[in-house]
């Protein structure tokens, strides 16, 4: 089972989208960005999802500070649709924290969660 933590804005929407796709295979915890990032760092969670207006601001800023820039990536900027191939590649590259614009949550989260499930053969 994947343990996903959610921080940033519109957490309820991320939670719903992630649960809708992942079902039994994901455990979604909604918390603050700071707590969420600390959980991932401590190994109490596997992946971080967060949203903000631009997709790279409040969504990831705390996660980058705690987990390091190399582990984080913006998958959907505002004004651009999320791209499935790009997201799959980022997942395969070992990114563990994903940021997105609030507008694209409903499109981006299913792609991210599906790619993660695929990576872990779930």
């Amino acid at each position, binding site marked *: 089972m994947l343990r996903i933590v959610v921080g940033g*804005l519109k*957490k309820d929407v991320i939670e719903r989208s992630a649960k809708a796709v992942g079902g039994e295979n994901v455990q979604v915890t909604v918390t*603050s960005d700071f707590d969420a990032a600390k959980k991932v760092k401590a190994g109490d969670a596997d992946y971080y999802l967060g949203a903000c207006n*631009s997709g790279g601001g*409040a969504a990831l800023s705390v996660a980058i500070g705690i987990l390091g820039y190399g582990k984080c990536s913006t998958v959907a900027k505002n004004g651009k*649709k999320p791209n499935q191939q790009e997201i799959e590649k980022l997942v395969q590259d070992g990114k563990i924290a994903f940021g997105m614009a609030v507008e694209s949550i409903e499109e981006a989260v299913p792609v991210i969660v599906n790619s993660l499930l695929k990576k872990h053969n779930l």
Partner: protein
Amino acid sequence: MDIFQNLSFFEIAVVVLLTALTGLAAHLGKAVFHDGIRPILPEFLEGRMKRTELASISFGLSIGFIVSVGISFAVSFKMLNPWLLFLPTDILGVMAASWWMAAGLGAVWGVVALFGLTGVQTAFSLLPIDLLGSLGELSTPVLVAFTAFPIIAILYQFGWVRALFSGLAALVVRQLLPIVGGVWTDKANANLKEASEIAGVTFPDKADFAGKVKALKDAAESNPHVQDLISQATNNFSLGSTISGFTMQIAVLMLMGMILLITFAVMKDVKNKAEITIDTDEENIFEARTKRIYKGLPILAAIGALLAIATNLGLMNGSEVDGPILQQAWAASGAERSNLLHSAAIADIIRGISFIPLIATTALATGVYGVVGLTFVFPIGLLLPNPILAGIVGALWVCLEVIALRGIGRFLQRFPSLREASDNIRSSMNSMIELALFIGGAFAAMKMAPDAVGLSLTVYILLYAANEGLGRPVMKLAAGPVAIILTGIILNLLYFLHLI
């Protein structure tokens, strides 16, 4: 204040100096505006990333904001704003190869933004269908939406039972305010009645308060007792109308919601005290990074001073919540203006509180501060009587903020629910402003073409829907303002083609 026709040298200097300094601050890695660039700067400062890569990331993160929020808000609210000024100076600052180039490019951007906006304003004001005047309509729904921020945040965090309780409590208070205000108004009328009996004046049937005061003043100029009663009556009357006034209702409701939200959060954390752990590794990282921020204090304080001055002069607004109110405030005068300025300041203070955890935590974790700090320099600019005082207090305030950062960090570790509450306020603020600007745009469309309401509304709604259908190339926050500006342009085109 219509800044765009009569810019003084002082005003131009404030803006240019401000953008030069923010460009420089970004170049030196002391402070940036975009919350997303702050955590990446250490990657560059510590040599893990190239300047060109950093510049292209900053550009990618910011361009959508500059184009959609920065420009449309500036045109709608007739003022410069942080997105328009400081997102570009972030990019220019990190792009520039040397410090003087960063400051120079920043200054140039200040000039471009100021005069670009002046040009757009002038061009729009020449159009036959009044676009700019109608944009004032954007503000009414925004003012009402404020009252809902904290309640929606309570709903997100603590469920519907507490949200319903808070909503009802807020409604009761709202209904009580006019009654409390009425007590003072009654007192004022009693004062006047007593005075009229002493002076032997009878009022005409339909005389309003000001009319009665004038009649009494004329009749009993030399009677100190009557004059005394008149001044008491005037004080009571203005107190009464302030308490029952619209802006007061909004301010009280907002504060009440915030107090409830904070109470719920603190209660939860006090109950779970045993489970909250304080991380010592984190403490050490924070310690080292804070020292970096201290070194940037002179430039940060100078930027703080200029921000407070620019806000005080009505040259710029500070956030998405104060813009619509400030637009009305600067168009009004006297007591109405100061009431609106106070509302805008309260809205900004609450927005500021909700951003403290994010800005403080990223600053402590990265050693890079925000160019607008914790954003309280904006209400300082709005509340103080003149630019000089605003500048001095603004600079001192930024120093205080920086000194308080460590304390804020420790405090937030003890109360994690407050950190979560701040995320929820930001979420609900975002949703409510999006909604309010969408509705406000519809009001503006109706005002723009009173003889062709159906047409203007249809154009507006089609444009808004097109953005949704195209996967939101314009951010939702800016979709309302952008759609209404385009509607105005389209209506003017149709007018020139003699189609309306």
